[in-house]
């Protein structure tokens, strides 16, 4: 995944400035994402704890409810067909609301009652007390189930979000930032080398110029010496 690659860019001082800015940006981005990931993980753990508690409670409540069904059947006889027959509209309904955690929207379910109890008079002649207890137990079970449902959907959504965020953090940390740093290093080495080249060229030119100057001075002296002799001859 990490190769020896760097961003292809012409090394210049401007490029260096740009790269430095990008590096800073990448680091800030990585820190922000890490914070988001931490917040999500914190919420995740809380939800996990609550799910465990609710599930244990659920086991107990369901057991209690099933037993109260047996008790009611003992006293009231078989009322299941009557109950099934009279079903029309739901009494307990669910509303879905949204909750926001560090930018991730989680669905939350909330139950509400609607309408009156259409089974108020069932078991009027026998077993009414047990039936009332049964209704209460199962109502409690339904409420717990709704809560468990919201917890579990949040759990799944958060899990996805955390995975994505962590992937991004890792990508920035292990791919983007090293690449920018490598590019920066490359630019710096190129610039240094160029400077050294410039320096060397300058030095070489200075040498050449010195040689030329010496040569031309020597020439001048020779010519002057020859010139004096000529001047003296003429005189």
């Amino acid at each position, binding site marked *: 995944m990490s190769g020896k690659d760097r961003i292809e860019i012409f090394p210049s001082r401007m490029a260096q400035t740009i790269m430095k800015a990008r590096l800073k940006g990448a680091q800030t981005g990585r820190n922000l994402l890490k914070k988001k990931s931490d917040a999500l993980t914190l919420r995740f753990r809380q939800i996990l704890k609550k799910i465990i508690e609710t599930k244990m409670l659920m086991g107990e409540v369901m*057991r209690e409810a*099933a*037993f109260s069904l*047996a*008790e009611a*059947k*003992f*006293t009231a006889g078989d009322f299941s*067909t*009557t109950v099934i*027959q*009279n079903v029309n509209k739901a009494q307990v309904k669910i509303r879905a609301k949204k909750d926001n955690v560090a930018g991730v929207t989680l669905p939350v379910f909330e139950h509400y009652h609607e309408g009156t109890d259409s089974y*108020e*008079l*069932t*078991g*009027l*002649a*026998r*077993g*009414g*007390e*047990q039936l009332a207890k049964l209704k209460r137990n199962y109502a409690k079970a339904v409420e717990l189930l709704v809560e468990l449902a919201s917890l579990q959907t949040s759990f799944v959504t958060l899990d996805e979000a955390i995975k994505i965020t962590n992937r991004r953090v890792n990508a920035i940390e292990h791919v983007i930032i090293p690449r920018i740093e490598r590019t920066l290093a490359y630019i710096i080495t190129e610039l240094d080398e160029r400077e050294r080249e410039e320096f060397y060229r300058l030095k070489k030119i200075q040498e050449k110029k010195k040689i030329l100057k010496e040569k031309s001075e020597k020439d001048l002296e020779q010519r002057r010496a020859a010139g004096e002799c000529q001047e003296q001859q003429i005189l």
Partner: protein
Amino acid sequence: MLEGAEFYFNVDHGYLEGLVRGCKASLLTQQDYINLVQCETLEDVKIHLQTTDYGNFLANETNPLTVSKIDTEMRKKLCREFEYFRNHSLEPLSTFFTYMTCSYMIDNVILLMNAALQKKSVKEILVKCHPLGRFTEMEAVNIAETPSDLFNAVLVETPLAPFFQDCMSENTLDELNIELLRNKLYKSYLEAFYKFCKNHGDVTAEIMCPILEFEADRRAFIITLNSFGTELSKDDRETLYPTCGKLYPEGLRLLAQAEDFDQMRRVAEHYGVYKPLFEAVGDGSGGKTLEDVFYEHEVQMNVLAFNRQFHYGVFYAYTKLKEQEMRNIVWIAECISQRHRTKINSYIPIL
């Protein structure tokens, strides 16, 4: 004319009485219940039941064994015995049997009416009807469009017709709440049954009338108890009380005015039979509920019915005791299968 039933009872009904006494002897005893309570799984329960009169009634059941299968098989056995008695009976015992089946018929009719009103398929409901309450016009229920059609075409042929006439006129059949209808039918049924037994006179009246009076009063108490906190008005409540019991007429009037359990208890204290029953009711979740106490009393009265000969009450008592036994076995089986053994001893002991 001599009233001595012992002179000519055995001519018509002696065989059946002997048969029912034999069946009664094979009800589960306390020892059987102790064995059942100690079972760990439903398979153990099945093995224990094989040693009793139930025999191999679960032999053809495939795994896994569930409580509902046990219940269905026991009910089939009871129905077989009941049908046998009924088919071999002569008048007036056959009318007596018809009266006994009326209570199941009422439940079935309510189920069918509900299904027809909601335009649901009647076939599935027919399976769920109580087998003892079968009557020949059952399949014809779904041709009726409105409840009054239902009444005119179908129900007028059944033994339930006079009870419907007592309860209502035709046009109120629609709005009436199903539960109120059920209880009103039961009230007329109970009163008719009571009159029949009383007119028959003799030992039957001596045995059956107290049982039916207790049933009527018990219904009055339970209806009152269960209607606290519901939207059932006091007048409606009063129309549901059967009038053939000891509480009629002052007790019923007082009960209709009662608002909570203590007022009910005070009404009961005027009657010597019911005072000790109410005192046996525990408070809250620890002790027995009123319904448990009533069940125990009913079982006691049914067992005592077997102490006298030459009356029809033995058949009624046997059926009720057998049903109670079925309920007990189902209760114990449920406790075992749900591993909730704290209340496993709350069955009603019979013998």
